């Protein structure tokens, strides 16, 4: 249950070995866009050597390459590493099928990066794949493909559609990274994603982690309200009651319980369930 996923280039040792001091709930070691073709093998070797020899206190995902030959080399390099999952760029039902050939004895968790227009018409096929754990909106590449610019308005439809697909299949939903260095704009954007219902947002710089964590942390008012709802439900055993003039029923109680579970997770430093 992560709020923030911080991208770290796989070929930069000082970022790799500091991955658990940035306060991100999860990190994504990148083998794709932030690593030049000439450094791909270096990134694999650095990541493999680091994760094989050092324990880390943060959930680690690896973004592999979309190119078939590079993807195969990536998967071979990370096969035995203690990672939480794989981020699959340019995800499609066809690319997801690659994971059927992986070791059946090892759980395979894939977060599908949705960054092409065609992927928005393939959610059903992808969501039912055995390895799929969540959908992750890749807004920058998507806007490039659409000819648009990354802003609240242009993101509303992709965000809504992705979120709906994720929720329909009980999958995790991760929002696109914000590319501006304007922290106030990032905070606004992260709060919009959280208000829509996203579970988390990606960060492309350590400075973005704290604003994202804050945006996805429920307010003290909402926490107190949830505590009172759950307390009253547990006291009366009732699934339907009134609190401060508001009618409370099963969905509201379940929502309050989920919110409190998230808060406990965030305050305890996270757990390994995405």
């Amino acid at each position: 249950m992560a709020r923030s996923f911080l991208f770290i280039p796989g070929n930069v040792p000082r970022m790799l070995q500091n991955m658990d001091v940035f306060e991100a709930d999860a990190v994504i070691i990148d083998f794709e866009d932030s690593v030049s073709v000439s450094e791909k093998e270096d990134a694999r070797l650095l990541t493999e050597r680091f994760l094989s020899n050092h324990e880390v206190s943060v959930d680690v995902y690896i973004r592999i390459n979309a190119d078939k030959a590079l993807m195969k080399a990536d998967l071979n390099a990370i096969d035995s590493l203690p990672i939480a999952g794989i981020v699959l760029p340019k995800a499609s039902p066809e690319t997801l099928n690659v994971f059927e050939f992986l070791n059946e004895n090892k759980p395979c968790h894939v977060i599908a990066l949705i960054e092409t227009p065609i992927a928005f018409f393939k959610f059903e096929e992808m969501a039912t794949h055995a390895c799929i754990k969540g959908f992750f909106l890749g807004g920058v590449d998507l806007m490039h493909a659409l000819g648009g610019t990354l802003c609240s308005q242009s993101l509303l439809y992709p965000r809504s559609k992705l979120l709906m697909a994720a929720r329909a299949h009980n999958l995790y939903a991760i929002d696109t990274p914000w590319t501006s260095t304007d922290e106030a704009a990032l905070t606004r954007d992260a709060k919009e994603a959280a208000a829509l219902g996203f579970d988390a947002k990606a960060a492309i710089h350590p400075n973005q982690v704290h604003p994202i964590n804050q945006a996805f942390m429920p307010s003290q008012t909402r926490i107190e309200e949830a505590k009172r709802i759950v307390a009253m439900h547990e006291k009366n055993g009732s699934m339907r009651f009134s609190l401060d003039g508001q009618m409370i029923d099963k969905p509201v109680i379940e929502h309050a319980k989920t919110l409190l579970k998230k808060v406990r997770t965030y305050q305890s430093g996270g757990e390994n369930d995405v």
Partner: protein
Amino acid sequence: MAKTITVGSLESSDCMITLKEGTGNVHIKSVVAAAFYDHIETLVRRVLKTHEVRNVDLTLEDRGALDYAIEARLIAAIKRYKGDANG
């Protein structure tokens, strides 16, 4: 012309390694040489031996890289030197 391969960077916590045809010389320049020269030399000689690399001279310019980074950069250099790096 003799092949020369350079990998890595001079950023903090990283190192730059150059391999070229030679006689097995190892030259190390490190910001932590006073304390770790012998350790780094043992490490690079072990990796060279493991990968059966002979007849090369190695130059390592270290910016405080940990063992895993030196080892990874050296293996990358060896693969490239041998011509079998995969993308």
